[in-house]
């Protein structure tokens, strides 16, 4: 029953999405970019905002005269939270619509699904979400945070400032939390944390009954050592998790929770009064005090015609990725993939926290890490800000990847160069 139902759903969704977004006809005097975000299905909750953000960025750029003297045209498709459909839609964008670059994807599964398409058809993808690392592709730019730009600084903050000695690593059961937790565990143990002071817990997608796990966390935390929860819980499961924490009376002063997937947008569906003091680590918060940010928020509110719409970290990553691409295209004088790939490395663009971000040879970018505490108005109070950190694609804390580096400049052009053996291990996975 379940299978046929799913099949039916996919058919319907596919039928809907192919017809819905092909209003705009191709025009020769525009440069086209693809926007590949789910507008229906489970991921629509997060990805729709990014689609809106991309449309806003395109509109703003066109007001400034576009790029290379041409207007930019965004081609929006809906992969409907269906990973294989992502690959199909990516192929359609590149081959049929002839877009110059694609901005999109949210989950790692969707990125892994489109990666071979971008390599095969030699196009460019800008991926704006924090991810687990352990990947490098010639055709993908990772403008979200790698684990060393989010997870490790957050753990350092808790250990140094709050004196945490006992760790619960709680996550949803899929690739990002598992890899991040593996890195974190290795990192914590390298810092002298004993194995019995680390508890790892996984839950299914959309888990809604957190009673047992919150009790487990409470019990784990009553061993006389300061305890914290590092949460890689994804998406919708966060709201019931935080509600249960609040109801069971776990205060941030006692057991703080630091989350890597909870931003302003996720908190919008939640009364945050019982959560004040719980933390999140990102490279951007809406509460960042910078002129460029104030301007961005104002544009966003004007574009969405909604004063309450919040901004979040993946939006900043999209902003950086888009501007870096514009700058590279202008430097190269063409939208040709190879020329842009050459030109974009080393490009610096302003980020929204008041500094600049540079595209590095490993296709990751530099950005500062901010630690924020949740406030009762659903915003974050920034309690720590680091200097800009370079995204590290191959973690130094995992035995498999500690010798690998990635450098896509000529003549190396290698996504997984092994510094121990001095050989390139082939194409990035």
């Amino acid at each position, binding site marked *: *029953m*379940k299978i046929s*139902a799913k099949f*039916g*759903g996919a058919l*319907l*969704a596919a039928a*809907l999405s192919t017809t819905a977004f092909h209003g705009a006809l191709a025009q020769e005097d525009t440069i086209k970019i693809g926007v590949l975000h789910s507008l*229906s*299905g*489970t991921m*629509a*909750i997060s990805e*729709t*905002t990014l689609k809106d953000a991309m449309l806003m960025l395109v509109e703003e750029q066109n007001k400034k005269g576009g790029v290379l003297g041409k207007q930019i045209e965004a081609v929006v498709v809906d992969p409907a939270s269906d990973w294989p459909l992502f690959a199909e839609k990516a192929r359609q964008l590149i081959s049929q619509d002839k877009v110059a670059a694609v901005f999109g994807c949210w989950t790692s599964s969707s990125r892994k699904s489109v990666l071979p398409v971008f390599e095969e058809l030699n196009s460019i993808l800008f991926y704006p979400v924090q991810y687990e690392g352990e990947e490098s592709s010639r055709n993908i730019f990772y403008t979200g945070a790698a684990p060393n730009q989010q997870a490790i600084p957050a753990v350092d903050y808790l250990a140094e*400032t709050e004196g945490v000695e006992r760790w619960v690593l709680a996550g949803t059961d899929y690739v990002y939390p598992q890899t991040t937790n593996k890195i974190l565990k290795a990192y914590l143990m390298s810092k002298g944390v004993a194995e019995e002071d680390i508890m790892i*817990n*996984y*839950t*299914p997608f*959309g*888990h*809604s*009954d957190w*009673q*047992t*796990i919150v*009790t*487990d966390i409470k019990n784990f*935390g*009553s*061993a*006389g*050592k300061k305890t914290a929860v590092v949460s890689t819980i994804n998406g*919708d499961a966060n*709201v*019931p998790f935080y*509600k*249960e924490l*609040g*109801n*069971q*009376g776990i205060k941030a*002063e006692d057991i*703080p929770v630091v989350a890597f997937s909870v931003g302003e*947008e*996720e908190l*919008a*569906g*939640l*009364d945050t009064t*019982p959560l*004040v*003091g719980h*933390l999140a680590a990102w490279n951007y918060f809406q509460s960042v005090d910078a002129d460029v940010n104030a301007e961005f928020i104002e544009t966003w509110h004007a574009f969405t015609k909604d004063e309450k719409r919040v901004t979040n970290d993946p939006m900043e990553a999209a902003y950086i990725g888009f501007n870096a691409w514009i700058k590279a295209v202008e430097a190269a004088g063409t939208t040709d993939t190879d020329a842009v790939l050459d030109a974009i490395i080393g490009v610096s663009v302003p980020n929204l926290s008041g500094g600049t971000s540079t595209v590095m040879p490993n296709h990751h970018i530099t950005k500062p890490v901010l630690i924020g*505490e949740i*406030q*009762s108005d659903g915003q974050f*109070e920034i*309690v720590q800000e680091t200097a800009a950190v370079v995204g590290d694609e191959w973690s130094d804390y995992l035995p498999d990847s500690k010798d690998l580096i990635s450098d896509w400049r000529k003549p190396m052009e290698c996504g997984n160069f092994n510094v121990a053996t001095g050989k390139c291990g082939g194409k990035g996975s």
Partner: protein
Amino acid sequence: MIFKSLLRACLACLFLSLCTPAFAQADSKALLDSLADANFKQAEEIVGQLAASGDPRVVPALEAFAEGDLYARKSDDAVFITQAAGSKLALIDPLSGESAGEVAKGAMSKIRVNNNLRRVIRSALGGLTLLSPDRNTRLQAASAVLASPSAENLDLVEAALERETDPEVKARMVEARAVSLLSSDRPPEAKREAIETIASLGGRNAIGILMSSAGTLDPSLQEDLDAAIARLESKLAFWDMAQNVWYGVSLGSVLLLAAIGLAITFGVMGIINMAHGEMVMLGAYSTFVVQDVIRSNAPQLFDWSLPIALPVAFLVTALVGLAIERGVIRFLYGRPLETLLATWGISLILQQAIRSIFGPTNQEVGNPSWMSGSFALGGMTVTWNRMWIIVFSLTIFFALLALMKRSAFGLQMRAVTQNRRMASSMGIRTPWVDAFTFALGSGIAGIAGVALSQIDNVSPNLGQSYIIDSFMVVVFGGVGNLWGTLVGALTLGVLNKFLEPSVGAVLGKILVLVLIILFIQKRPRGLFALKGRAVEA
């Protein structure tokens, strides 16, 4: 920065020597003002000094600080308690509590607070308010000291204990004293007593307090400590069991709520209704709309928002259900595959419609005050929202049972599903009974949505997360039998919660599914199978 505060302290000293009566006044004021440009570490020290001053007038300022309502004026670094007043901030003098006018938000900068500071403030407030004339404040103070043990509070607690007359507050203070004593440098004998007092507290917290002092104690006390911890652990083993059963019943009641509407549309009528989850979702969105209207028009009614939302949700979903039955399903009776596809399509349409109207993001549905927080029952924590949901789902279940078994409509409903032609020839208008039965099932799903909005996300995807579980419960319990749905839901809930601690949530869920598949192999009609001729019809 340090220079500035030093300067200010010097000025304060100068001021002090000039007029001694103003000693405390100037001291506290200067300390508070020095918060203006202190970093987190310095602020902790300042709070410590404020606490040590014993000046009770700093209490409101410290409370405001912990809440994030303490601001410094940018022009002169003077510190004020603030309240939002429209787009401006109303200033209140931190010591006297007098109003000090209103200023624009831009003229003030917030004095930032983090978790560590909040902890320090909580402990300081505990110490400062132990002697308050108000009984509840003293009780809170003692609890605060209990929650954040520090040797500095010991003298304060002992002084307060001597003057305390209220038995409940006194008992709390004795505990607070024991906790503070454990981390002080008192002789081992006193500490032995303290260990006993803490052990008598019971619960996880007591174990935590005892274990945190494990390394610092005199070796002669180690035995007492271990014995006390072991005693606590053995007591907790029983309560852990009870807690597990409670969690199981709670999960079972959520499953029951989700499935009970389906027990009618699928169980009684035999429609494979894939849009059932969306009815739950519509119910949750009705709650959101009701709360939204109440928030903007009559905020004082907020605690009543759920009782008000119940009939609204029922009506909305029942009408949608009626429309679906009349518009689509009635043409598809006896064709289960087509029904399945059609209702799945309807579910997608409803989801996308809600997404277009309300947006794809979660909507905030608040918990009324009587559904927030928890209470302790022996050694276990019971959260109010879970308890009310159990009560609520059982109420709905029995109300529905009464409707089916005792009312004329229930009788017609059962007659039509058991033998349509016979019922028809007895003068029952079968098409309308079908329509109203489906509307009833949808309406019940809608009021389940009201309850589920309290524990889950209110997003367009809400329904999808419950549809599989609902079918699981109805099929496992036995199609067409309400009691089966009840027993099935509770069995699955308890089973899940007993598997979860040992094998984890992911594997637990898989095991439950495997067990159900095996069970259905053995008993294809579920726990409570319908018997007799009705089954064949």
